[in-house]
């Protein structure tokens, strides 16, 4: 993102994009993140996306909605998304608020997220793309 220290970093590792949120984001920053990430998924033809939200101390309805929308858009572009790093307090608050992650799978941290992607990738190979 432009100006100042990066709020979010997006790295590529093989066919997986790893997006780490470094600090609390406001709504506009979240939306910009959404666009950046979805653009990069298309650009790199990624098959997996991991979003690390460990740095978010609040995931309110807008943030949850945005994360779900990213996962939806990613799926439309052929990538599976895993959310990792949701903090215990944040997890419970999200549930109370009535905002889960919907159908988006979650994992404890980056390592688990990568394992989950690998597992799902080998378990449900998508018919439209041949496996590497």
């Amino acid at each position: 993102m432009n100006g100042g220290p990066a709020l979010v970093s997006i790295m590529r590792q093989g066919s997986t994009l790893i997006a780490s949120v470094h600090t609390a984001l406001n709504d506009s920053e979240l939306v910009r993140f959404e666009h950046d990430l979805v653009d990069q998924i298309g650009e790199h033809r990624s098959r997996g996306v991991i979003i690390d939200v460990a740095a978010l101390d609040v995931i309110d309805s807008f943030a949850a909605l945005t994360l779900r929308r990213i996962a939806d858009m990613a799926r439309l572009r052929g990538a599976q998304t895993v959310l990792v790093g949701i903090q215990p307090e944040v997890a419970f608050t999200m549930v109370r608020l009535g905002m889960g992650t919907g159908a988006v799978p979650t994992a404890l941290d980056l390592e688990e997220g990568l394992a989950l992607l690998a597992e799902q990738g080998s378990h449900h190979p998508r018919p439209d793309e041949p496996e590497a």
Partner: protein
Amino acid sequence: MEQAPEHDSAQSGPGGHLLSQLVAHLREHRTRLQEEWSQRIQQTHLLTAMTPQEMAAETTSVYDNYVEVLETGNVEALQHYAKDLSERIIPRGVETHEVVGIVLLLRDVLARSLFEKYQRDFSMLNEVLDAYEPAANRIANTVAVSFVDERERVIRQQQDAIRELSTPVLPVRERLLILPIIGVLDSERARQLTEQLLSGIRKHRAKVVVIDITGSPDVDESVANHLVQTVDASRLMGASVIITGLSPKIAQTLVTIGVDLSKMNTIGDLQGGLEEAERLLGYTVTRKEVSTSS
């Protein structure tokens, strides 16, 4: 004889002069009155948990504090002392009625000495008592309240400790936690359980959690709700939850609040739950081996 700070209600008005007179009297006869008080305490079998030495030390302190409050009207020091005293004697099983009892005894011992001193001058006696009684009652009140406060604090602390013991998060093997719930779950305990479980998941990097509620006879709707939220929150942290030992009654409650039981992983007994957990983990492990080798 003006030493009255403005905040003191006991001293303002005509009582101020009398109070300082009676404070002087109580100071003068300190040894005799205190002894008399100690005897009365023994006769009424109060504070039997204390040794005579302890008793002597405490009665001296209480007496001096008491007189000081009469003089200054400032109960703050007494409050501190009463709290401190309570802290020391509560673990030894001293009861509320004993503490209130000894303060009331002191009040009476002192009142009696005032009777003796002023018995010839009835109107003077009346005035002295008018000044003394409200101050003395205020002291008794302060001590009792401090003691009860402290006692409640201790009880709360113990409750917390018991609660913590009663919802242990047990790491039985790598990536697997068991949370046996024993006894009645109220919403406070349920809240604690959630916090412990969620932080336990992170700490032990758990992938599967077995919550066994065989030992919990019944839950109300709000606790059932909480349980379901805990399951959902665990999932957000990447852990699957298996619930075992669900009684028909609790199952019914869950259905009543609109929980879709088919979406919850429920297994009849703990043994079955552990097997399912191993299956989930074993499955994961083999897949991982496959994936890392590819």
